[in-house]
């Protein structure tokens, strides 16, 4: 049984032209790191929050999300609390917004232990200090008594990670965990997350807009566009041969971590807003390869192509070795040379 499993999850807000999420299928097993990559507004944060049973207010929800077998759509308060306190924890983008500014760091860390598990103050504080040491903070005893504004952003993100681990959940949801931090801190936080994930065999869902970062830490990548997963593949396969034009566009528009720096090719146009909808493939208006009369008629269903699952009408022709119309250089430009 996977730790986290999305089963055709759909989320629609009344008064919008298209669903926020449409048929999300995804699973994360123990010890597995899965990345969900997409531009802002693609629905990746909504997807992550759904794993804690947090849905936008007033939304219409179809399908199911299960954490360790517990369905969260239509769940009662007790099972929601169980999942939130014991099974899964979220690490947020901006640690400064995630902590209550008027309460001490120690309160933040021990709250679930004391409230949900009834631990004594001392026992919870000892555990919190242990976790602060585990995330590499130098002076746990002092940090427990400090207020959030007395710590740097990188230190606070370590606190947030420690807080996520207090009740020993098996599943971590990381929503852009390094985006609000400066570059050198980003690397440290990623290293801490990676170490803890390996040591504890955690399942980890990483939400990011940065496909290179996703590649560096995860086993599989799911690429999202306008509320749908357009391509899902193991990292090496995805980089060697992106099969969806949007994936190729993402790779072509972000600088590679390794190898020579090629010219970056931005994806033309802008992502589709919630008030727009298209009868066909949502990416068609921005796609070099969109075929009028086909791509703009019906949404492409996800299909298996080799190691990948791709939702594109033209995958077969575009990735066939002897395609009559060879893809432009940009299409495969960022294949990882060393993988």
């Amino acid at each position, binding site marked *: 049984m996977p730790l986290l499993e999305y089963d055709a999850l759909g989320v629609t807000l009344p008064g919008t032209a298209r669903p926020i999420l449409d048929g999300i299928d995804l699973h994360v097993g123990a010890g597995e790191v899965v990345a969900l990559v997409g531009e802002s507004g693609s629905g990746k944060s909504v997807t992550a*929050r759904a794993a*804690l049973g*947090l849905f936008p207010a007033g939304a219409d929800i179809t399908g199911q999300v299960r954490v360790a077998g517990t369905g969260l759509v239509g769940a009662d308060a007790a099972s*929601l*609390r*169980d*999942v*939130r*306190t*014991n099974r899964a*924890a*979220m690490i*947020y983008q*901006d640690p400064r*917004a*995630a*902590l*209550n*500014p*008027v*309460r001490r760091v120690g309160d933040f860390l021990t*709250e*679930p232990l004391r*409230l*949900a598990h009834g631990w004594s103050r001392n026992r919870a504080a000892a555990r919190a200090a242990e976790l602060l040491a585990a995330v590499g903070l130098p002076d746990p005893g002092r940090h427990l008594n400090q*207020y959030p*504004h*007395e710590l740097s952003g990188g230190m606070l993100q370590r606190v947030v990670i420690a*807080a996520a681990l207090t009740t020993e959940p098996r599943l971590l949801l990381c929503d852009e965990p390094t985006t609000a931090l400066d570059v050198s801190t980003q690397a440290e936080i990623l290293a801490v997350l990676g170490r803890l994930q390996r040591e504890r065999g955690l399942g980890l869902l990483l939400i990011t807009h940065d496909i290179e970062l996703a590649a560096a830490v995860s086993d599989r990548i799911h690429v999202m566009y306008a509320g749908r997963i357009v391509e899902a593949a193991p990292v090496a396969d995805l980089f060697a041969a992106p099969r969806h034009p949007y994936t190729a566009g993402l790779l072509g528009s972000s600088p590679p971590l390794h190898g020579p720096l090629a010219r970056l090719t931005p994806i033309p146009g802008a992502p589709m807003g919630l008030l727009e909808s298209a009868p066909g493939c949502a990416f068609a208006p921005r796609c070099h390869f969109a075929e009028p009369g086909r791509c703009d008629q019906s949404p492409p269903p996800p299909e298996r192509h080799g190691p990948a699952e791709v939702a594109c009408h033209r995958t077969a022709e575009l990735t066939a070795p002897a395609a009559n119309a060879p893809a432009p250089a940009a299409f495969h430009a960022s294949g990882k040379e060393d993988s």
Partner: protein
Amino acid sequence: MTAVAARAARVLRRLAAMAATLLVTSFLVFSSLFLAPGDPASFLVKGRSAGPAELAEIRRQYGFDEPFLVRYWHWLEGVLHGDLGRSHLLHQDVASVIWSRLPASLLLIGVSALMIAVVGIGSGVVGALRRGSRTDRSLMLLVTVGAAAPAFVAALLLRSVLGVQLGWFPTIGNGTGLLDRLHHVVLPAAALSVTFVALVTRVTRSAMLDELRREHVEVALSRGTPRRTVIRRHVLRNALGPIVTVSALLVSGMLVSTAIVETAFGMSGVGSLLVQSVDQLDFQVVQAIVLLVVAAFVVVNALVDLVHPLIDPRTAAAGSAR
């Protein structure tokens, strides 16, 4: 150690500023009475005929003929020694007159403050948590009416309905003994607090709504903290800053509002003394009460400033960084 030193320095700085404010306002209070129409000397001989020579003699006796600054100095010296002068009207020490009237007014203010805190904060919290509901809308309607109702209108309404028609509460006087006093003070306190309850409700509701939107509230919920606990520990707790500030300032200004309510309910307190003294040009008493009003305001203000770092630790950091 340095944190303690910084805190002590901040407290001292605040106390010095408070003393300076009080000094300046004492000067303003003293001089403002000279702008008021009427000559105290001719008031003192009211009803009798007095020639210019007699008036001059009275002025000399009471020190009305001395230069302004000298008179201010004498007055200030007296005030600092607890001597607020003599009431020409009551032929008593001003300090002892005010002292005998103060408990009744403090009881009135205390009961009002309690009503404001319980009803104002309570309905603000309910309104914020049920935003847009029927409860919230009716509360907001009541609050708008309450904020627009002057204390004397509220006093008249309460007296006629709860006092005269239903006969639940006495409508006049202070009462004797603790229970009777409390019974007598309910209606005046309610009349006094109506407007303030409305203000505190509004402030509480909007502060709560601001805090409910914060990400750390969602984070706390997403960690399985029960909603009730999140509201108490993360929403109401964080909204306390504006609520405490506004409530404290309102209560500190209430001594003035007691004038209307005490008069309406025939109570003997500092407020009704003020009305009576203004009416009869009893300058020494007016001066003393105004000074008391200002002092209450300044002291509460300073207290709020000193309490704030306990409510929001970030303000302490900002203060010591200066």
